[in-house]
Every structure is written in C-alpha cells, then in structure tokens.
C-alpha cells in the first residue's frame, strides 16, 4: 500500500507549551484511521499541521510525497473537517456547499444534495443561524461529498444526537466501500467508531502513545475477575494496568493476549474473563500515563 502521509519528528511549540512533541507516523492509502485521545492531547494540532493550517516548529511532513505548506497540488487532495470551522456571516447552507464544490475536484453534487435532505438542512438558511448539530451536519456533508483522497474529520458530530451520529457512521462506511480513500477520524467516542477503524493512533500529551492495528489492539488486553488472592496469583508476572477491588473480589485488567494455557489455568482457579473494549483499554493507558505511572507501551 502506498504511504500518503509521512510525519517525521514533528513538534509544535506554543510559547512554553509543547502541543505536539516529536511525533512520527505514517498513513497508508485506503485505510480508516482513528486518532484517539483525550481533549487537549494534541489531536487537532496534529491535523492542523498535516493540512498546513498550522506550521510546525520542528520536523518534517510529507503529503503525497510533498511538503503541504502553500502547496495547492497537495492541499487540493485533502479535506479537513473541523469542529471549529467558520463560515462568512452572510453565507447560506447552499453557499457553503457551492463553494466546497469548487474546491474539491471529486465533489459529488447529487450525493451532497441527498445528504443535505437526510440531515434536514434548509438550503436557504443562514449558516450562523443553524443549531450546533446542523452546523456539524454541514461539515459532515462537505467531508463526505468531497471524496478527497485524504479526508480528515475532527470531532465532526458535536451537537448531533446518537441517531444522527449513527447515520454519519453508516454513510461514511457505505461511501468508503464504494469510494475507498484514506480517512482519519478524530474522536473521543471510541466505542462508537471502534469497529469502523482499521488502524488506531492514540495521542497523549502531544505524543503518540499507541500506533497499532485496531484488531490486534483489541486482543491486547483482557479483564480477569475472582477472589482477590486467586486473581493476584494468576496475574503474577503479568502487566496489570488496572485493579478494581470490590470487597474480597478483584477485577484486574491485564495487558497481553489470552492464550489457551492461561485460560486453562484461570479455569482451574475459578476465575472469569471479560473482554476489554478499545475505549476501556485506551482510557486505562492514557490515565496511567497522565498519572505518571510506568505504563509501558503496548
């Protein structure tokens, strides 16, 4: 697969704050990436750097093999939908879509129109009079209908209810299958999107904490529950990232995959297993990092 994004040792400093700290990663053509992490972890800054909307303090970025800054050839292939996008005061919904149509060579106008109707967006309504959810819908429509080879959604669903978010995920999947392209989804609603993702980047305090395939990440942790002493016996020598005691019971979240041998041993001890969701795993890992514990990289 072709690498379309290369980020090498990129940093972004704001006065005394390192928003992005020597980050390196690559994105491959045709995959859906999840950029996950807590608010303020540096996700948005990384995406702004990728799209040359912010300028790195250090390091190198390549999009489609070229530096993106002031590079029309490269930027024309990218669509970056961000939560904070501003529109001119006098613009109506129709104006925003018409302008977007001019800027994206792969724009599908009939698809955009179908989406507009699905989200019940009044064409003649001024954008500044839209509700938060409707404003998000404008971004979603532009992001999907642009069919840009690299499409980035940064928390695109603010103000949308669960039904509308589900609609967005379904549309994204359906359109991605028809028109494969590289998608980056930045979100903290990890459970909602985890099945859509092929690859996960977890950002924590300006750094990349995890850069893994979603499927292998899912198998990298499990929870084991039972009487405290038995759980401790079982978990000896394992990487326990979380302990939740309840009276004499203990649930331990363990890093590592569960082999048949361990499963057998746990059954002998009378312990029970539970899966650990992607969200749970990431929450635990980022929490440990923030608490300054020695959580190792998975």
């Amino acid at each position: 697969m072709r690498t379309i994004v290369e980020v090498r040792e990129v940093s972004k400093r704001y006065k005394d704050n390192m928003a992005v700290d020597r980050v390196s990663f690559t994105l491959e053509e045709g995959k859906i990436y999840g950029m996950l992490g807590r608010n303020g972890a540096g996700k948005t800054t990384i995406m702004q750097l990728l799209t040359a909307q912010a300028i790195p303090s250090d390091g190198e970025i390549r999009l489609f093999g070229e530096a993106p800054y002031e590079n029309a050839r490269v930027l024309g292939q990218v669509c970056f939908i961000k939560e904070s996008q501003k529109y001119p005061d006098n613009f109506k919904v129709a104006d925003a879509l018409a302008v977007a149509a001019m800027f994206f060579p792969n724009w599908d106008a009939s698809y955009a129109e179908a989406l507009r109707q699905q989200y019940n967006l009044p064409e003649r309504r001024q954008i500044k009079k839209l509700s938060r959810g409707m404003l998000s819908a404008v971004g979603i429509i532009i992001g999907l209908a642009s069919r840009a080879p690299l499409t980035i959604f940064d928390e695109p669903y603010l103000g949308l209810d669960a039904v509308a978010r589900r609609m967005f995920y379904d549309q994204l999947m359906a359109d991605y299958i028809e028109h494969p392209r590289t998608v980056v989804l930045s979100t903290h609603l990890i459970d909602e999107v985890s099945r859509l993702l092929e690859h996960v980047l977890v950002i924590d305090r300006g750094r990349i904490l995890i850069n893994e395939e979603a499927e292998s990440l899912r198998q990298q942790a499990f929870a084991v529950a039972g009487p405290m002493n038995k759980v401790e016996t079982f978990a000896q020598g394992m990487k326990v990232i979380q302990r939740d005691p309840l009276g004499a019971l203990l649930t331990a979240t363990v890093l590592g995959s569960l082999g048949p041998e361990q499963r057998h041993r746990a059954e002998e001890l009378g312990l029970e297993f539970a899966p650990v969701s992607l969200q749970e795993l990431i929450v635990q890992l980022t929490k440990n990092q923030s608490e300054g514990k020695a959580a190792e990289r998975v």
Partner: protein
Amino acid sequence: MNRTTRIMQMHLRDKWSWFLIPSMIVGISFSINLLISLFMTEPLYTGGIASVFVYIFVIGILVVPQTFPLAIGLGTTRGDYYRGTALTGLAFGAMTAIVLLALGWLERLTDAWGTDFHFFALPYVAEGNALAVVAQYFLIYMFLFFWGMFIASTFRRFGVKSLLYSLLIAIVVGTVAGFLALRFAWWEAIFEWFATHSLLVVSLWTLPLTLVLAIAAYGMLRKSVV
C-alpha cells in the same frame, strides 16, 4: 477551474457585502440629499460619495476574518487566497470608478438633477478628463481596500495586541506630527499643496503606500494560521 478565480467566486457569493450594501449606502445618501435639495433655493454640494470609500475600507478589514478561515479550511493556499481577494478588490475598484464616472456624467447631463444638487460631479473631485477621474477613484479605492486588508492581516498574523499597539503608535505619531505642523506652520503649506495639485496627482501619491500595504498584507497572510 483556476485557483484564483474560484476565490473570487467565493467572494462574489457574498453579494450583500460587495454589492448590495455599498449600493444601498450611496443610494440612500443620494436620495436623502436629493430630497433636501428640493426644498433648498441655493445649490447643494454634499460629500456623500465619500461613504463608498469609507465602506471599502471597512470591507478590507472585514473580508479577511470573514473568508480566510473558510478558504484555508477548504484547502486553498494562502497565496491563492490573497491573489483572489486582491483581484476581487481590484475588480470592484475598477467597477466602482467607472460607475461613479458615469453617474457624474449623468449629473451634468441632467443639469445637477434639475435641483442644483451636486453629488457625483463635485468640483476638484470630478474635474479633468474621464481617464483621470476613473484613475483617481480607482487609486483611492485600492488604497483604502489594502489599508483595511493590512489591518486585518496584522490581526490575523499577530493577534489583537498588535492592533492595539499599532493604534497607540498611530495616535502618538499623529499627535506629534500635528503638533510639529502647528508649531512650524506646515499646515499652510500642506493645504496649498492640495490646492495646487489635482486629485489625480494626490491619488497617485497613494500608489506607493498602497503597494507597501498590499505587500505587507501578503507577507503576513502567508504566515497566518486558522
């Protein structure tokens, strides 16, 4: 589609800011003064036409915060945005200059609207040949447009504090210069210079300033973020 013209098309989507509001300002100013002139026995000269130029200064300031974030958000380069925006300003400057000239002719043709009301064909302003009149309107328009854009770009690039500092410096410099002019009786010379030179010459003197403002605005926008 050409990358610069699509920025122009983006601006033209906002018909209110570029076309309707300035037309209304001039239209209302003209109508009210025309009405007043009906009840006056002596001739009426007003400078209502200046509102067009004040307005374009405001547009120059507003256009950047209104459209820069969208253009950059949709993947335009800062250079393309600047070229498209500057060309939009140039196009409207030329159009405005020609319309004002035509309205001046109409005013002469109708014998000052029949009520001795002078709005478009003012002495000193609309003297000289057609080309000179169009050129002077255009040059003043562009000076004010880029001055506004310069202010907006300063804000974009360096934030609100930079604007306050610039304002402070402008006030200090202005006060000192005014005081010196008074102290050494330069005012008389300044007035005389304006009186002896046509508006065309005066407006030609804005050209180097306009160029400096335009280049500075470009330099700042190129380094601006959204």
